[in-house]
């Protein structure tokens, strides 16, 4: 639970940070989808159950929805579906090394963007979105994916740091618990 919460918090901070940085530098195109990288990690981690991973994916998607100003649920649904696909792939593929991780992030970003685009196209009329704008947005997907691929090793490094921190915290808590419950040795008279 702690790990999941920290992952969500990291996803939120990264999204907010990227939004802030993009606003400060007036960038709109080449922005990495850090939440997608976290999604890949969650899917290929295999340390949690499918529903737990799905819950994290949907929360990350929800946070992204809020940051990107999309209709609520769009990215949540896309993240959930892509998580299912990645979880299925994780049973067949092992993702190790920076290059493979970056490529995985690239593919995941493409998948998320395409799914989001599809959802928006399907709901364009009720949501009042222009199809012209969506068509032009589709042409920008590769920049988004490329930026995500470039940012993947750094984000994965942050996750590794987070894991190390959690492991240390757990070790310390176990050590202190052992000290509390240990019974002092008594010499028989």
């Amino acid at each position, binding site marked *: 639970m702690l790990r999941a919460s920290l992952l969500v918090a990291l996803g939120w901070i990264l999204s907010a940070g990227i939004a*802030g940085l993009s606003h400060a530098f007036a960038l709109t195109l080449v922005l990495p989808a850090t939440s997608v990288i976290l999604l890949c990690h969650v899917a290929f981690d295999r340390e949690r159950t499918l529903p737990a991973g*799905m819950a994290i994916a949907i929360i990350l998607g929800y946070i992204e929805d809020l940051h990107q100003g999309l209709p609520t649920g769009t990215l949540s649904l896309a993240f959930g579906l892509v998580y299912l696909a990645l979880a299925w792939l994780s049973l067949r593929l092992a993702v190790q090394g920076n290059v493979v991780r970056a490529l995985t992030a690239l593919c995941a970003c493409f998948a998320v963007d395409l799914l989001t685009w599809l959802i928006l196209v399907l709901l364009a009329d009720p949501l009042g979105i222009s199809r012209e704008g969506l068509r032009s947005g589709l042409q920008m997907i590769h920049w988004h994916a490329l930026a995500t691929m470039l940012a993947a090793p750094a984000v994965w490094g942050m996750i590794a740091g987070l894991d190390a921190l959690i492991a240390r915290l757990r070790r310390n808590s176990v050590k202190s618990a052992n000290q509390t419950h240990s019974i002092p040795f008594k010499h028989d008279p």
Partner: protein
Amino acid sequence: MAASSRTFRDLALVLILLGIPVLLLRSAAQEPHRLSSFDRAVRRIGGPLEAGLGYAAMTVGSFFERWLLQARLQEINSELGAENRELRLRLRELLRIEEENRELRRSLQMRDKVAEDMLAAEVTAFEQSPYFRVLKIVLDRGDRFVRPGMAVLADTGVVGRVDRVADDRSDVMLITDPRSKVAVEVARTRAAGILEGAGEDRCIVDVASETPVEVGDLIQTTGVDDLFPKGHPVGRVTAVENLVGDQQRLEVLPAVRFDRLNMAWVILASAPPPDGQADLRQERPAARGLQPIH
């Protein structure tokens, strides 16, 4: 059996979890005026959450933005500082040029004021007394141009005369030098006398004047020594001592501040005397209408 029930439970949970974004999307796609009670409930639950997350995201974003803005401001600040330093240097240079320009203009006006043939010279050095009074100045003109004894003027008044001349420089004996003598007169009373140097920025002149000379009267050259041009200012009377009869001894403060002198003019030759025949040589205009008919 246990494994299959767990898988079934997981699948159910996954479907329920996937249903959440679908419900959110459904609610977002509804028109705000035609919301069902279910959609209203979804919005009511999601609204505060959305607002809270939005506010938190804005706070984090603005933190980064502020941080970056501060870095950018520091950069701009250092750039402006460098520009400011450069502009100050340029301003100092411009002020120097402006002062030089003003001085050159004054010097050029000398040409209009003085009829004699003059040569401009730059003051290159001073010799000062222990009390920081200027005793001697050095000009940048050598024996190719000037000779000893030539008069030296400034735009504000008489400086002195050339004393010694070397290859590339010449020493000027100031009017305050005890060896210096200049024919002068009081501008107001026309009382003439010989101005002698008394050292330390002072000169003395004895005059015989029916009208008493007063402190502040202007002393100017008479031109009778054929050295200094007539009517050029020499200084002002600072003290008057009455001697025998109508004799008065005047203490004169030179008009020129020798310590601030940058440029001087050497009188190379006296102005030619006025041509008395000039009027006669003028061709008379022909008398039209009374000419003989050829």
